[in-house]
């Protein structure tokens, strides 16, 4: 089945500038019907960030808590919050 390309905006809330991702906000192209899990796998592989794939971070889509299975649509804003807890 042919799936349309959709673009989602990903914002990372990290404890500090993550080594692999210079910019805090990135735009990612996904296929229609892709989920948060697809996005995480993609980012994990592309930037080599192990925590992204662990499912331990907190994920919001359009400011609502989301899970790995949440589908992503054009223009969605995904907020990935690092699982770290302060010092």
């Amino acid at each position, binding site marked *: 089945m042919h799936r349309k390309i959709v673009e989602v905006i990903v*914002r990372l*809330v*990290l404890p500090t500038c993550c080594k*692999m991702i210079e910019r805090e906000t990135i735009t990612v192209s996904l296929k229609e019907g892709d989920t948060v899990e697809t996005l995480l796998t993609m980012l994990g592989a592309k930037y080599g960030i192990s925590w992204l794939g662990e499912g331990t971070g*907190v994920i*919001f889509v359009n400011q609502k808590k989301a899970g790995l299975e949440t589908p992503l649509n054009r223009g969605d804003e995904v907020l990935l919050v690092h699982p770290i*807890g*302060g*010092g």
Partner: protein
Amino acid sequence: MKGGYVGKLLFVDLTTSSIREEELSFDLAKNFIGGYGIGAKFLFDMMKPGVDPLGPENVIGFVTGPLTGSGAYMGGRYMVVCKSPVYGGWNDANAGGYFGPELKKAGYDGVFVTGAAAKPVYLWINDGNVEIRDASKLWGKDAKEVLDALIEQTGEPKLRAAVIGPAGEHLSLMAAVINDGHRAAARGGSGAVMGSKKLKAVVVRGTGEIRVADRQRLSELNKAIREAIANPPDNVFGQYVRGFANLGTGSTTTPSVLSGDAPVKNWGGIGIEDFGVERAKKVGNQSFNENYFVKKYACAFCPLACGAIYRVDGGKWPLGITERPEYETAAAFGPNCLNDDVEAILKCNELCNRFGLDTISVGATIAWVMECYEKGLLGPEELDGIEAVWGNAEAIVALTEKIANNEGCGKILALGSQAAAQKWGKGYEYLQTAMGIEVAMHDPRLNPGWARVYQYDPTPGRHVKGGAASVPLNIPDRGKVDVAMASNFEILSSAGLCQFSMFAFPKGAIKELLEAVTGEGFSEEELFTAGVRIFTMRHSFNVREGLKRADYTISPRVTGKPPLPQGPTAGVTVDNEKLGNEFYATLGWDINTGIPGKDTLERLGGMANVIATLYGG
């Protein structure tokens, strides 16, 4: 032992002005390592149960570990131990900076002070010479000013001192012990215990050498640690190292608020909804570091350097030179009060450091006031006209000033939120405390293991007591994991290390450092047992005070009773009874009373006095 320990402890009675030394025995060092361990052992042996924590019979100790000042990286800690005036049980707290290493160079592994002086005094320990000196002229000075005054009085510019500010003098139950002007052994009211003894400061200066059994091995280990810190792995531990090295503990404030780790609105709010992304970013170090940054600050022998010196010149609260607030401070005065005014947080941090106050308890007490204000339980009449509306930065600073100066409503609030609720006879339902002390700024509804640490550690409500805080609840052998982590924290702290060594050090480094420095072999098993022994000794102090498991209480909201309706931790209630049961059972303690079994104590070894006290004979 061949190194690490000085081998001497100092005992001072301020009532009789008597001073004596005791040798630190090999067995004691091996069984209890240092810091919390040696502190708990001595306080258990020296004190009777039931004494007034603010009376002369309480003993306060300042105890280092074998790695303190040895040159081992991150080995700069000392620990303050006493009976807590907040909850009437065991209290300990630790601090970095430069006091611990200097105490050892001055000739002692630890100092224990009992009795009470008739007028203000300080203890002057100068290369093995010990004097009790008049501190009348120092009384009333803040924790920074007093250092200059001490230098002038002693003529010794290189001294280090553990001091109290005016809060300790006023017997505020939130009073901290402060060294180097801003490093705090903050929690549990140790500052009030010093104040009750009229002990303004323990002042040290030494030129002695701290022996190291195998210097070559120590420098190899240090090199490996430095390399591990310079090239952190790309996992969560590595993120901590990178984040703390760049921006300090507050590098995590923004993600903590959004993930649900940082409590919001006195634990009743939801970070992403009630505070929001932009405000969460505003209070995170990443956003304001460059505005105020002057230079980095590191404790003794620390290549990580998570601290920083700031300068605030303009704005509503110009401070000049100050320090970067820690995560706990930013969370307590920030999102927990719905406050995003960074300069107000910096101001409160400075006030707490100078007056000698625990930032967690002060911030949490103000959050409690704000909720009581919102609910109409407290108003401007009780609060000297202060409008304690959520997020009102001026009100937060004004309340902190009242507490610091012990005036008006600050006299009541300086005793902490629980005592204030009792005094005013209201607001109990909004307290966020464990056994009466304000809980630290990590939410068990996100990482349930915090609930076990907050409720069942012998020092309740702390964020520095390890435990399997972030390990999932439903793993097999959860109790074992929790005990292993608790033991680990006892060992690294008692050894004199900063707790951030936990994720900054290569695996096995703590054991190897101990061996290189002391020249003594420690098996993994021995160290694990020593950690459990220390934990059990701290707990046994509470058992002897009559504290049963049922006395270890925690406010319901902290464990999700009722759960939050929305947000990342929606619906979560932590089954802390179960966590406690598994933890106690793994330790071999009675799960109903919390009393350690006799056979458990016998197996641990080194607990003869505890066995005699709890079981007779």
